[in-house]
């Protein structure tokens, strides 16, 4: 299963992922046309900043997800195979329990109603729109093993570099 | 119908939350939140929300009562006061001033406590003490020794600036609830919160690390933390060198407390001890919050010294976010101590055995110097003992309920029954008042004015909102009337004029003049020596309050609790408070919205123990110790370890079980540890 990984040092806060997300969740799937839609398409991820650091926050599709646990109507559910947490607007009563337990604050609302909206990993796309949109590749869509391997390679390179420096001394 | 909002200070705990009383036609009709108060920011705990329920309570005392033939009869003020005056004079003349005992009140204002101890001392007795003895006497003793000043070093909102908050023996989530917002704000910034408590309390809910140590092993843990900090090089060498003395001796001493040994004593894994030490010592600013889990031991003073040592060793004191924070219990326990309602101190912690101090006060109070005694008085528990032994013959109790609050309650009852005169001045007919010869109806907090001092040394003025019920009168008035009948000429005793006298006699209160204090929203911090002084929110920033300005590092050794489980009493009883009730419960047990939520005494025990003793949840059990027994409803929970049982002390009963063994220095009883046993109550025992 692929996951969306965030490279924490890469986000420059351009909000492109947010726009791409909203556009992907529009009927027209085009920025210019989406502007005129009703309901207004909603983004499902959020670029936030703390001190000087910028970071896109998006649903982590937690295992044993709190939002699924608290949902009293079954609107929020986790796919048994893909582990993707999705939300069924038909069953949502807008009680906001999911929002209140989400550790990341990434369950949004549809403006016109108090209905939750959240990341669905772009089921119509090979790669989620936010990942495609990120100009600095801060977002990566890949298998967990691949991401870890990538991190290991970086770590190994650093170790080797450090070893080299130590030898030089 | 015009409504007015009168600002007031909550009568319950030492946090000093402020709120408004909505007054209409002279009656308190509602409560409104004061969102701009610097500590509670509008918030109130359950008790604060119910505070108004005691004002118009049907059980309020509304006229003086005199006991005749074991029954109370209403009396006029003249009669009651004259009777008290005559009896006190008679005992004083017949037996001497040392036969008079005075229990002041941490629920009363600074002005009232000041007058009360002034009355005792002008009568020649230093036997004036109050329940601070039962909560933070070790803090007063130990911190005065170590830091030179016995109080919380930093304001409560400072907690939000801490990067590590180490909580030892404090269940502030239930007992000082408004701290929660400040701790959460620190956590939001990434601070680590470590809670040390034998019980998994709601305070421990928000801990990043929870250390369930064995009751009474705090010194071992604290020494262990210092050992790790020292051996890992995490101590603040610069701070130690510049600001302290005694490091070498302490360092040598600590070598005896490696984590492995501390682990054996405390029952905590060594890794937790190491992690705690690292988090606390390496934080850029760390606070150490402690409360009665530290003080209410026979080793209470040593526990406090060890806390101070740890803070000093790591340089975690005298800065924003770095403080040593003993949380005081009652709304004015700090003030009552400041005002000299302590057996060994005049107001402002000036020792009674110093002749120059004695002379100063004799002059200030307009009495002959030899009227004032030079020998330190008896403390709370000692007074009870002296009463039992017949040495104390008259006891004047202002707003305390020793029958419930003192340890070994059965003995307290017995001792009080031996008195020639017991005068109780209170708002309700408490368990102690029921034993009194004369009961005087006092005004509740909102029915009078005066200043109180919070746990953070914040002195705040509380305004009168309504008139007392019936003939109830403010304590200052009552004390003044008694003083007059004992031949003391004090002139006016209204709170502002008493505060003006305090300004002159208590240097740390010198600048807290009445007009300034009444106008200061959020109060002022002592020390505040002059009317121009801004007050001192953080203590010890430049120097400590010792003679040489340096703090003393004082090695302390672990001693086991006085009473350990044995065959007949195989369990360890520990006591404390719950969110819904307050101390002896004379107010909260009469507050409908509170008492309905916690109507009976409970005893918490671990499922393992419950199984062993055949106790099921909700069942009545008998809890007994070598001193006595009581019934309580069992509450089975794994938040206490096996072998430990917990009982709140808000109901009659709990303190029949606790021990009156004392810390030798601070004379505090060991409420937190007693050996006990439990058994399912027999039908006929059920309450």
């Amino acid at each position: 299963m692929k996951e969306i990984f965030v490279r924490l040092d890469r986000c420059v806060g351009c909000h492109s992922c947010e726009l791409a997300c909203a556009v992907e969740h529009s009927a027209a799937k085009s920025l210019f046309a989406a502007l005129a839609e009703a309901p207004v398409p909603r983004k499902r991820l959020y670029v936030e900043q703390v001190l000087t650091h910028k970071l896109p926050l998006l649903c982590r599709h937690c295992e044993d997800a709190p939002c699924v646990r608290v949902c009293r109507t079954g609107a929020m559910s986790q796919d048994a195979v893909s582990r993707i947490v999705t939300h069924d607007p038909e069953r949502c009563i807008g009680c906001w329990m999911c929002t209140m337990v989400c550790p990341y604050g990434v369950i949004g609302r549809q403006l016109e109603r108090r209905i939750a909206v959240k990341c669905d990993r772009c089921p119509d796309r090979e790669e989620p729109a936010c990942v495609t949109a990120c100009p600095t590749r801060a977002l990566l869509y890949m298998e967990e093993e691949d991401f870890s391997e990538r991190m290991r390679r970086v770590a190994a390179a650093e170790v080797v570099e450090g070893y080299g420096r130590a030898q030089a001394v | 119908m015009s409504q007015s909002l009168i600002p007031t200070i909550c009568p319950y705990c030492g946090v000093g939350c402020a709120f408004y009383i909505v007054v209409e036609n002279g009656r308190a009709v509602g409560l409104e939140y004061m969102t701009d108060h610097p500590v509670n920011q509008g918030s109130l705990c359950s008790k604060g929300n119910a505070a108004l329920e005691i004002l118009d309570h049907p059980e309020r005392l509304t006229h003086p009562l005199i006991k005749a033939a074991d029954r109370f009869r209403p009396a006029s003020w003249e009669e009651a006061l004259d009777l008290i005056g005559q009896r006190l004079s008679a005992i004083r003349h017949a037996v001497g001033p040392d036969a008079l005992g005075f229990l002041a009140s941490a629920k009363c204002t600074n002005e009232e406590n000041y007058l009360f101890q002034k009355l005792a001392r002008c009568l020649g007795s230093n036997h004036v003490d109050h329940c601070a003895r039962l909560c933070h006497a070790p803090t007063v003793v130990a911190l005065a020794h170590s830091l030179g000043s016995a109080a919380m070093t930093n304001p409560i909102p400072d907690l939000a600036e801490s990067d590590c908050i180490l909580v030892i023996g404090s269940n502030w989530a239930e007992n000082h609830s408004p701290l929660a917002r400040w701790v959460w704000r620190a956590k939001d910034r990434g601070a680590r919160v470590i809670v040390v408590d034998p019980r998994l309390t709601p305070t421990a809910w928000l801990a990043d690390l929870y250390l369930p140590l064995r009751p009474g092993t705090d010194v071992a843990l604290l020494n262990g933390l210092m050992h790790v900090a020292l051996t890992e090089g995490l101590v603040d060498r610069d701070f130690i060198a510049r600001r302290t003395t005694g490091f070498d001796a302490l360092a040598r001493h600590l070598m005896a407390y490696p984590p492995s040994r501390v682990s054996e004593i405390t029952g905590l894994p060594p890794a937790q001890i190491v992690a705690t030490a690292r988090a606390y010592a390496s934080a850029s600013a760390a606070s150490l919050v402690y409360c009665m889990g530290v003080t209410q031991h026979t080793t209470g003073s040593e526990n406090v010294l060890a806390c101070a040592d740890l803070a000093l060793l790591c340089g975690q004191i005298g800065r924003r976010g770095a403080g040593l924070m003993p949380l005081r219990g009652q709304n004015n326990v700090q003030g009552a101590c400041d005002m000299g309602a302590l057996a060994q101190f005049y107001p402002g912690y000036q020792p009674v055995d110093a002749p120059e101090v004695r002379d100063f006060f004799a002059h200030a109070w307009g009495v002959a110097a030899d009227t004032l005694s030079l020998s330190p008085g008896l403390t709370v528990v000692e007074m009870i003992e002296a009463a039992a032994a017949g040495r104390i013959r008259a006891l004047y109790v202002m707003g305390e309920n020793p029958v419930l609050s003192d340890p070994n309650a059965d003995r307290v009852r017995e001792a009080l029954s031996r008195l020639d005169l017991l005068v109780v001045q209170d708002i309700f007919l408490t368990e102690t008042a029921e034993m009194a010869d004369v009961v005087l109806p006092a005004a509740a907090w909102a029915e009078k004015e005066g200043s109180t001092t919070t746990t953070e040394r914040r002195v705040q003025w509380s305004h009168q909102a309504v008139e007392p019920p019936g003939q109830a009168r403010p304590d200052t008035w009552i004390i003044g009337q008694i003083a007059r009948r004992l031949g003391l000429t004090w002139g006016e005793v209204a709170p502002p004029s008493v505060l003006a006298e305090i300004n002159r006699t208590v240097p740390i209160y010198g600048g807290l003049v009445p007009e300034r204090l009444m106008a200061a929203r959020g109060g002022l911090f002592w020390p505040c020596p002059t009317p121009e002084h801004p007050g001192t929110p953080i203590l010890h920033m430049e120097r400590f309050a010792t003679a040489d300005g340096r703090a003393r590092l004082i090695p302390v050794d672990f001693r086991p609790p006085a009473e350990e489980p044995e065959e007949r009493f195989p369990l360890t009883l520990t006591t404390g408070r719950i969110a819904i009730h307050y101390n002896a419960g004379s107010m909260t047990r009469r507050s409908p919205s509170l008492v309905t939520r916690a109507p009976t005494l409970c005893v918490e025990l671990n499922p393992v123990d419950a199984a062993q003793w055949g106790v099921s949840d909700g069942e009545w059990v008998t809890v007994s110790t070598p001193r006595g027994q009581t019934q309580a409803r069992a509450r089975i929970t794994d938040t206490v370890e096996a072998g430990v049982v917990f009982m709140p002390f808000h109901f009659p009963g709990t303190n029949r079980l606790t021990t009156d063994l004392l810390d030798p220095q601070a004379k505090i009883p060991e409420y937190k540890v007693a050996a006990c046993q439990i058994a399912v109550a027999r039908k006929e025992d059920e309450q």
Partner: protein
Amino acid sequence: MTRLVYVQMERCLDCQACEIACQREHQGLPNIVVVPVEDRFAVALMCRHCDSAPCVAACYAGALAATDGMVAFDAARCTGCGLCLVACPFGVIQWTPDGRSVHKCDLCTDRQATGREPVCVLTCPAEALSYEEYTEFTRRVQHRAVASVLRGQEVKRR
């Protein structure tokens, strides 16, 4: 956009201040309930003022109505049938002591008329309750999430 009472559940320390404040404000009937869970957690439950509120759907008398972002209750119309109690997913509609009607959170409508916040929010010592717009609430949660992620990152860099 309308404000709502949000609960940060991890902050609740079971002090029950909100219950008592609410009870005082509503003539002795608390509309918020703190439910302790396994002695390690407590959840403050009150009417969520659901968008598609099951209680409103269940109420045939028109006593419950979704208006202005809240579910309002009109006691005068209540027949005391109790269907709303059954429908409520959170059990926060309760019988009055006489069993003839129900009571539920009214977001302290009377107080709001004079610009004052609901009492449960004001009184909560732990700031577990907040009365705010949806975006304010999520923004705070997001900020904390970012901060904690970054702390992890900084530890890694160290």
